[in-house]
């Protein structure tokens, strides 16, 4: 806002429920979904990966529910504020630091994945930093607009992601073979559980 400040704009840092949902969905449909099949199969080594994926999803949902409950219990407060209230100042502070560190490394990882994928498919020979740099600049420009701008951008991108996701899913319909799911639990439950960490983390990027 240059020059004319608006008095009637909605307060900064408030998003609607649907915006929150859209952000979450976009978040899960991140680059992790691209690598999820390979990494989880590597861990499980049986055809039961699909069970692992479902289990991982359920766990992610339970954790999401906990987060929602916590937020309902402490409305108007951020994670950093209520974590200190629950477990005390020091441990809460440590947890907050962990969260910050987690997001920091996660963003770096995501940007890197994006750059690698782009470099592989679109820009062979372009140095990775040259791909990352403009992307980060645009991200910087976006976040200076606050959470509202971010939420709105996600709302624009959301339909595009869904369309592309469905398109990709349906394009592979031709090579879809239901028999590949068998044998179900052929090697017992143990290998299925091995992959849960990977799949949960793929969903649970919160």
């Amino acid at each position, binding site marked *: *806002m*240059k*020059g*004319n400040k*608006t*008095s*009637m*704009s909605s307060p900064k840092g408030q998003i*609607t429920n*649907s*915006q929150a949902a*859209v952000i979450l969905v976009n978040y899960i449909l991140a680059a992790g979904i691209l690598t999820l099949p390979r990494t989880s199969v590597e861990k499980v080594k049986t055809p039961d990966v699909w069970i692992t994926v479902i289990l991982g999803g359920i766990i992610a949902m339970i954790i999401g529910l906990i987060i929602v409950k916590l937020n309902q219990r402490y409305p108007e407060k951020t994670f950093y504020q209520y974590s200190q209230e629950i477990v005390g100042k020091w441990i809460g502070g440590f947890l907050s630091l962990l969260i910050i560190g987690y997001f920091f490394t996660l963003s770096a990882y995501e940007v890197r994945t994006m750059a690698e994928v*782009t470099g592989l498919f*679109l*820009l062979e020979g*372009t140095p990775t930093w040259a*791909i990352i740099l*403009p*992307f980060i600049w*645009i991200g910087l*420009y*976006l976040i200076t*607009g606050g959470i*509202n*701008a*971010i*939420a*709105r*951008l996600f*709302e*624009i*991108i959301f339909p595009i992601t869904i369309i592309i996701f469905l398109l990709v899913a349906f394009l592979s319909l031709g090579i879809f073979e239901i028999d590949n799911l068998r044998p179900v639990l052929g090697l017992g439950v143990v290998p299925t559980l091995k992959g849960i960490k990977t799949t949960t983390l793929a969903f649970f990027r919160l």
Partner: protein
Amino acid sequence: MKQHENKENNTWNAAQASLEPFTGNFALDLERVRKEIGHNSDVHFREFQIGGTGICAAIIFVDGLSDKELIDKHIMKSLMMSFSENHHQEPSIVQGAVSKEYIKNQVLTIGEVTEARHAKELASKILTGSTALLMDGVQNALILGRTKGKSRNMEEPSSEPLVRGPRLGFTESLRDNTALLRQQGGNSNLSILKFQVGERSKKELVIAYMKDLADPALVEEVRERIKKINIDDVPESGYVEQLIEDNYLSPFPQVQNTERPDRVYSALMEGRVAILLDGTPFALIVPVSLSMMLHSPEDYYDRWIPSFLIRLLRYFAAIISLFGPSLYISFVSFHQGLIPTKLALSIMGTREGVPFPAIIEALIMEVSIEILREGGLRLPRPIGPAMGIVGGLVIGEAAVQAGIISPIMVIVVALTAISSFAVPQYSAGISFRMLRFVAMFFAAVYGLYGVVLFFLFLCSHLVRLKSFGVPFITPVVPYRVSDWKDLMIRMPLVKMRRFRKAIQKKDSMRKG
């Protein structure tokens, strides 16, 4: 008279004298007014005596600006002729003076009568076209009537022609324009507030809104911003637009301008606020959204199926005009593999012998088309088409034959240019034209990834942009599905009874 002037100079200095209240002494007051504006050759002083009484009076007016008929028929006639017959019984006249109230209430047959208390006020009123009446024994001067104003006939708005729809456009006269708005529908809720803008030359400006539909906070915001305008002179509403817009760095216009009363009125009916300035046919509408720039009033005048399809076409054209050349550049210079092989071969075949990379080729053509457009715009009307033919056909053809440009590039550029004409708002079309060049540079550096980056960048900017507190991309996001009926698509009118919520809060159902 010279002596008198000297004496006055000794007594007061000129500025003080002009602010001193009138005395009621005719000769003295008239002298003050003469000193204030008498040097102007177009200011006329007409001294006379009120019919048969011997009381001195004078009218002062600007020749050409004031209403001659008003002066002749209503002022002079009622004061000089009708007066002598009827009014000599009035007690104040019998005493050899005349009372202001009496003149106002019983003699002058004029609707608009105000008063001026000193010479400065009087001068400003006269110079804006009113007629002043000074009388002996009456302390304040009477200001009669208002400017007749020079205006042209109402014509069809030349910047926004429609196939179907009202042919009437705004003119330069504010009075006519507000009258046109009132005439659009006998709606008693239409409020028109008056403001003055300009520090040195005062101009009248009005804001119009529907009392029952417009958000009071929005109206307040508009008033605040208009009051903040601090500039010597406001020749056109473009000045107002630039001084009240939210973000002057944005390539997008955050205020809509239009010459069409029907467009303004339908905006008012959506709860928006219109700003009209004296002396220009362009009215401003706030707040606006990006989708408004791609809508035309005609979308609603035609039946819904053609309007629906045409609107879709227009969005498509806007996308082409924004991304056309950049997509071409990125495919040709980075991702030949993504084009079907046969097409790729034929494109490469035509590009054989072209000495430039695609970006340079595109720049040459785009810039020359922009020059053509700008040149054609300023030309006298009969030469315009000839220029288009020479520029478009001859240069395009010759450039291809000379081997500087590939024929496909000419097709792309021509398609882009035509697409950008499909944007109904001229100012929005310019934004797309500017951004097209940015997109081309992104594409030239990063290929398709660059186009995606540019799209993200554009979206990041759009989501931050606001027009008078309303997000610029309403109602695309935040999701407001009920408003999507009138966004890219246009549903049948019977299905479309709701207003846009972002603008209007009080009354969500269109009465009908």
